[in-house]
């Protein structure tokens, strides 16, 4: 499981629960809690003595079919700080954004490509910055994190890249969707050459992304216990459909994965990798892209899904334009409103009503200029 049990996160979690607890407090437990809070703020007790706050946790955290929200940050492509400070500032800004959300989201989902070239120092820097998040972190792997040491460092920091968890009645599945067939052995590539090849979006020496048979089998098994009307959200780095192969906006075994998801009433897939507003729906599956904190990508020159309302061209004169982070509001029926928090523009909300109606209701505002 990829959460950070760091001192800071724990502290923040406990703090959050304290204030949450205070809000729901009955008179009698007030003294108990405030004593703990006082102790902490006066430096008498280590922050971990916030424990009594579980006091007033109501039905809210255990029940199912509730609405809740989580935040996302993605595609920071960190180099070491002295190589490139711009991308580091991007991630710091996103962490600030998310920490400033009030109330706090239930958790923060990191969408992959934390590092640019999968180097230890890059991943460590990313992990360090993400520890500043107040809310718990769920993280997914991207190709930039993986192909230098084939995931060794990433897994050391964050654990298994494939896992599932349940939150307030929603089953979440996190996949490693950037599995590429071996193109490097035959070409005698060094690990760094392999990494550089995968890191080039338009480098066609690499293989297409897949989820792969092992994970598909795992997915099938993992979902077995769920009923057809279960609330299900899949998190993947590449879009779990076929958009544009030359840039690996693509999952080669997408149809097989979709077939596993077919029986469910509604499925939401949230993916990284494409650095842009991107919406699609294939039958029961609703797909949403996320923003990057590093740079926006142009739209694929062909094959754009009809539901996507493209953001207008980014301003080259503003390195933050087209970048950002965002939130996901999960409805009781399992569909989501996807909020794109663009740093240099108004936020855009792609609602459940929009994808559910196939694009006729609740249409997000069209940008004033073309994306071209």
């Amino acid at each position: 499981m990829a959460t950070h049990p760091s001192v800071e996160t724990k502290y923040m979690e406990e703090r959050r629960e304290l204030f949450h607890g205070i809000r729901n407090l009955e008179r009698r437990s007030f003294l108990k809690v405030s004593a703990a809070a006082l102790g902490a703020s006066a430096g008498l007790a280590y922050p971990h003595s916030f424990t009594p706050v579980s006091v007033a946790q109501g039905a809210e955290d255990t029940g199912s079919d509730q609405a809740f929200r989580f935040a996302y940050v993605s595609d920071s492509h960190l180099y070491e700080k002295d190589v490139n400070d711009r991308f580091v500032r991007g991630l710091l800004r996103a962490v600030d954004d998310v920490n400033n959300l009030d109330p706090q989201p239930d958790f923060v989902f990191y969408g992959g490509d934390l590092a640019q070239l999968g180097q230890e120092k890059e991943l460590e820097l990313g992990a360090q910055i993400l520890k500043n998040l107040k809310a718990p972190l769920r993280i997914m792997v991207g190709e930039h994190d993986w192909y230098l040491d084939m995931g060794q460092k990433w897994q050391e920091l964050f654990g298994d890249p494939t896992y599932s968890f349940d939150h307030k009645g929603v089953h979440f599945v996190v996949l490693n969707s950037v599995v590429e067939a071996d193109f490097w052995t035959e070409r005698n590539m060094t690990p760094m050459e392999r990494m550089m090849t995968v890191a080039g979006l338009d480098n066609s020496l690499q293989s297409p992304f897949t989820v792969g048979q092992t994970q598909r089998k795992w997915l099938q098994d993992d979902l077995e216990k769920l009923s057809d009307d279960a609330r299900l959200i899949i998190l993947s780095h590449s879009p779990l459909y076929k958009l544009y192969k030359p840039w690996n906006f693509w999952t080669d075994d997408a149809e097989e994965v979709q077939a596993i998801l077919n029986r469910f009433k509604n499925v939401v897939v949230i993916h990284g990798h494409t650095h842009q507003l991107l919406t699609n729906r294939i039958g029961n599956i609703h797909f949403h892209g996320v923003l990057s904190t590093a740079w926006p990508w142009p739209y694929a020159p062909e094959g754009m899904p009809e539901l996507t309302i493209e953001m207008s061209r980014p301003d080259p004169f503003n390195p933050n334009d087209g970048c950002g982070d965002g939130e996901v509001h999960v409805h009781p029926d399992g569909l989501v409103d996807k909020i794109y928090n663009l740093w240099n523009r108004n936020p855009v909300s792609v609602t459940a009503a929009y994808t559910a109606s196939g694009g006729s209701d609740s249409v997000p505002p069209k940008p004033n200029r073309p994306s071209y």
Partner: protein
Amino acid sequence: MNWTLIRGSARRAIVCAMLLFWAAFLAGCKHPSETAELDAADPQSDAGKETVATADTVDVKSCDGENTVQVAKGLTGQAMADALMDQWQRNHPEANWVTEEKEKHVFLPPADNSALLQGDQGKGHVYGNFTERDLITWAREAEKFVAEGSRIFHSGDELGSQIAVSCDMCHPHAANTHPETYPKYQVQLGRVVLLRDMINWCVENPVRAEPLDPNGPKMRALEAYIMAQRKGTVMEYGKH
């Protein structure tokens, strides 16, 4: 350093050496049918070894006056030429860089001019009489120019980026560079600019490098690559 130049002179050297060999072969070779002793010129068998002339080999100096190549005595002309080519390729592992660049960062081929070879090749005109060889030369040279641009476009080091950023990170396959819209009034710069001005703007800002010499080889190559990627797009200067 200019790749094209290095390669050009190396190629000339090898061609010279081949000619020398043909001359030697025609003048002195006693057993033209013999193809023995190919081993001495086998790329596997002598790769990486210092070559030392033995009784069975001859030293041949190529026209650059520096490189000496050894080839077994008594080779046929073709075998000699092959041996020389092998040796040259071993010394120039990057010789296929255009093919490799094309394979890595697929770019569009130059226009097909084969129609020029059809029909009545201009009677009585010298200009306009083309051979297949002309067409091959044009395409090869144009592609090489574009490949050079592609190499620079995809390399933060070549661009001199201080933050390890290259153009392809934001413009895969040169997407969203819109060369067909230039010249145009660039609002943020407050003047009419050419493609190269906007390239240099991106070089200085997102890429964070020293601006390129607007007439220098790197800028010319970048322009070539960017233009080549928009093959078939309607020119529309001034479009925003």
